[in-house]
């Protein structure tokens, strides 16, 4: 077989090492036109392939700035750096949306653990809370993101698998149903925090589970880990009509997010850390929602936990949610 080899003029066997002369001739043969064309074509393919792979970088200027790209994790930011970042965010929002935003970074209040109570005897399933939340938290309208999901349950069972969340009757409440809105439960032992591979989400000092939107890589592990499906992902760049943008924003709360980050209910931390109520609690026309401080023995939440019939969702998961459902009638 070695005799018929085309490139081997001396007709030697399979082991060119045994014949130094022919090896040298092989290695240092002058470049043929064929090889040059091959190399040229392949080189062009190489460059073309690399260019295609780097195509997404075209949007770098629109999506982010270099300063944002190298921004540190929230917990490592100094107050001065945070000031600069807030100003930069306000500038970006002005450029992109034409709105004069006021982005702040309210810190947790000492001796406060926020908790929520929801009276399912009163909830009528009107979804006013859902839309008040969407307006307050600058959620994308198209594709639509809603932090609160109202489940319509048949009377007589707690089994959520029998619920319907797409209901749209002419009027609510419908006969023989009760309603249970579900949002982030701000768990004491959150699964989402454990799942995050980059620590972009953590439980803050006042019990609210927060997300650093600039640190989040958008892997959605937290969405998979959450037993209540509280976390939403921005599959596309958020679309919010300019006149509906809420200009009072918080860095960890309701500022306008980018495509590829997670978001969720934050108990309106931009409001609650200043003493106000979350928007959903204010919006409920039936008075089904109560909000307060677990550490204050005279708060409405503590009263409910003492006096009323309270349950939590998916207790067996061990997440210890701070969203208490109760009923009295």
């Amino acid at each position, binding site marked *: 077989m070695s005799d018929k080899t085309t490139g081997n003029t001396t007709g030697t066997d399979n082991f060119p090492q045994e014949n130094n002369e022919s090896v040298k001739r092989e290695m240092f043969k002058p470049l043929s036109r064929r090889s040059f064309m091959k190399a040229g074509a392949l080189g062009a393919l*190489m460059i073309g392939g690399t260019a295609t792979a780097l195509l997404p970088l075209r949007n770098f200027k629109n999506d982010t700035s270099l300063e944002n790209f190298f921004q540190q994790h929230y917990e490592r930011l100094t107050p001065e750096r945070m000031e600069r970042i807030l100003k930069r965010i306000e500038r970006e929002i002005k450029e992109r949306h034409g709105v004069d935003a006021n982005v702040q970074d309210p810190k947790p209040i000492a001796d406060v653990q926020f908790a929520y*109570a929801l009276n399912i005897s009163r909830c009528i399933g009107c979804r006013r809370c859902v*839309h008040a939340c969407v307006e307050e938290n600058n959620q994308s309208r198209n594709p639509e993101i809603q932090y609160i999901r109202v489940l319509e349950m048949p009377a007589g069972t707690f089994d959520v698998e029998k619920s319907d969340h797409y209901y749209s009757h002419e009027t609510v409440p419908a006969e023989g149903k009760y309603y249970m809105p579900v949002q982030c439960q701000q768990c004491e032992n959150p699964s989402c925090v454990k799942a995050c591979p980059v620590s972009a989400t953590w439980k803050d000092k006042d019990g609210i589970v927060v997300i650093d939107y600039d640190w989040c890589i958008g892997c959605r592990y937290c969405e998979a880990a959450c037993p209540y499906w509280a976390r939403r992902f921005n599959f596309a760049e958020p679309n919010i009509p300019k006149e509906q943008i809420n200009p009072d924003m918080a860095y960890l709360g309701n500022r306008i997010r980018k495509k590829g980050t997670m978001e969720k209910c934050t108990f309106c931390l931009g409001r609650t850390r200043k003493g106000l*109520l979350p928007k959903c609690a204010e919006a409920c*026309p*039936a008075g089904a*929602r109560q909000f307060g*401080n677990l550490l204050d023995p005279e708060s*409405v939440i503590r009263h409910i936990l003492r006096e009323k019939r309270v349950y939590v969702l998916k207790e067996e998961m061990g997440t210890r949610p701070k969203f208490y459902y109760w009923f009295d009638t």
Partner: protein
Amino acid sequence: MVSITLLIPEIYRKTTLKVNILCIFFCLFCTCPAISFAFDHIKTPGGENNVVDYTPVQGYLRPLKLRRDTLFEYTCNECHRVFDSDGNKKHTIFEHTDVKLHHGKTTICLSCHHKTNRNVYVTNDGQEIPSDKPEELCSQCHGTTYRDWKVGTHGRANGYWNSKEKGWYLLTCIECHNPHNPAFPKLVPMSGPVNTGRHVKKGTH
């Protein structure tokens, strides 16, 4: 990309099998994502270049204003001193005809309104209740609701979550409930999540 040079026979002959496999592996590693990026603008739902159709967001209900806002400047007694009115009926004949009493088992006006002093409400034993304290009237029958209201578990949450905060307030009964027809009408539900049809039909879990 470097591994494309493997296609040149002169170079291929000099490499070992292991190096070849490694190069091809890395080659695929780069080209596969590169190809997918080229199709990105098709895959992304509602992508950046699409025309948007914003889902209209409806306003939400606010509580009813104080009934007192609808009265004229003069107080009730100024008419009722002159005109005699038999409060032992459920319906009126000439005035207040817009008031339709649908309050549970309450049958007559005088259940709540004082017989002689129409500026005030009345207790069960005929005492006067000032008109700015309707909860004292309502609590006579709705005691448990009054107890819940005082603590904050009945009624809309207002303003602040800390009841000790300056400016915290409780809405009085008639600021939400129409005393003559206290039951709330059913509401039209606002829009829910978009049903893309991809999820299983309900009831088939």
